[in-house]
């Protein structure tokens, strides 16, 4: 299947990346090339194969339910583009 300009704009929007019309148009053949190439996976017989989620057998650990960090508000905020009164600041959101 191939993707068109509308689809590219939709993907960009889902990805939260603003693109100009010219950029989106340039991406149509690029993305189609790559997607056309990965589609060869469809020919592999995967009957009875479980999707792989972990490459090395490992179990997710549980740790003691205790506080191990915290009290580092200023360090957390240190790299924020805009921090005010101990919070991350963002443009006004009114729904």
């Amino acid at each position, binding site marked *: 299947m191939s*993707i068109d300009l509308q*689809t*590219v704009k939709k*993907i*960009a*929007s*889902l*990805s*939260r*990346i*603003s*693109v100009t019309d010219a950029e989106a148009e340039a*991406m149509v053949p*690029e*993305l189609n*090339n*790559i*997607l056309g*190439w*990965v*589609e*060869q*996976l*469809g020919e*592999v017989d*995967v009957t009875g*194969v*479980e*999707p*792989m*989620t*972990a*490459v*090395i057998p*490992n179990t*997710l*650990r549980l*740790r003691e339910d205790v506080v191990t960090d915290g009290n*580092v508000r200023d*360090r*957390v905020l*240190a*790299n*924020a*583009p*805009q921090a005010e009164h101990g919070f*991350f600041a*963002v*443009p*006004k*959101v009114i729904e």
Partner: protein
Amino acid sequence: MSNPADKSALTDLTVAEIRDGFRAGDFSAREVAEAFNANVAAAKALNAFIVETPEKALEAADAADRAKAAGEPLKPLAGVPIGMKDLFCTEGVQTTAASHMLEGFTPTYESTVSKKLWDAGAGMLGKLNLDQFAMGSSNETSYYGNVISPWRRGGGDNAALAPGGSSGGSSAAISARLCPAATGTDTGGSIRQPAAFTGISGIKPTYGRCSRWGIVAFASSLDQAGPMARTVRDNAILLETMAGFDPKDSTSLDLAVPQWEANLSSDLKGKKVGIPREYRPDGLNAEISAMWDRGIEWLKDAGAEVVEVSLPHTKYALPTYYIIAPAEASSNLARYDGVRYGQRDLPDGAGLQDMYAATRALGFGPEVKRRIMIGTYVLSAGFYDAYYTQAQKVRALIARDFEQAFEKCDLLLTPTAPSASFALGEKQADPLAMYLNDVFTVPASLAGLPAMAVPGGLDAQGLPLGLQIVGKALDEQTVLNAGLAIEERAGFTARPEKWW
């Protein structure tokens, strides 16, 4: 050591030689750090570093010299300065992942792997350039400019060549003697391919050996840190320090770190080396093929038996990777939203959603955007099963191929990359042509296996070619030992002629 000739000799030493020479009193740690700092400062033309930290290198060196003078026990890497790929968060030192997005980002914490290295006494020469967010195979996607390989083709051809990627700053700096060793990270070949392009060695350990905590994430099920250096022994030394269980990484393996250096042996008697027939497709570069044949002979000479094996799903590894890695990247890079760290672009009157989209358009380069969008598409409603689930299933088959091959052998020998280094700009226009560079390295990444690149020789143009050794999960020792056997027989002493 006071004359300049001796200073330049210091930067020719390996990690092991620096460590041991410092202990023996042949030179001070400060002399070593100063010599490398001078080489770094004089190599701007390579653009290998994004940030230089000569003061950090001196600080660690002075601590080592003081400890030695006081007769205190010396740390394992006392006196050894190294380069740090700018994908590892370093407390108080800008960490960018070679992106505009993270320009100015100064972590308030230290990555586990870098902390282990500093705790072991190593000093930091600087933060090394890379492909943006580690996405690339030629170091041409960095926001801070291309890294230029110190190697040039013979015959007066001065074309700027790719140092490989994504760990291209690391590979260029090591081969140019700006640092004796460096960290790398490998998602689909980002340690091994740049090592091959610059005539050095590098190992990606088994997935889970090195903590991912504090490393800027690209594709979490594939990302692994590892060392890069000029010798196999140096890789063993550094990997011992970098590896180890970390409760802060949920996929970290809770296993003791083996004594890889002490157990190095190039005697391969009783070992079987598998040669995967799918890695020799029609049209494989004749010089690569010939080097591979020499590698096979070297391993036989070291006592190994050679058997042919089959990895039938090899041709599907790259397309599988280019679904899984972008899918994970699209999810991981969702964090760059202009709120918590990094750049923010807030156009006049923009709301929150507009700010996200503008910030990400500004902060990401074209290849990063391309991969995020591919990942978003293959994970989107209606396409998830056809692309992502299918890729995860094929990944299981690729891992099974290796398991079955390892019933017949103990390690695999292959070329590292399908060609020698290429000129900058040569493949930049065609993303697919660039992706094909990773054809021999991606399968082991998908299976989480330890894999190493070692120099195999030079091609007719005088450029390095690399051999790759792939081992069973957790068997880094056999990989290192086979690497050592090749290193002893290849006698690779070539180095780039200084032009920078």
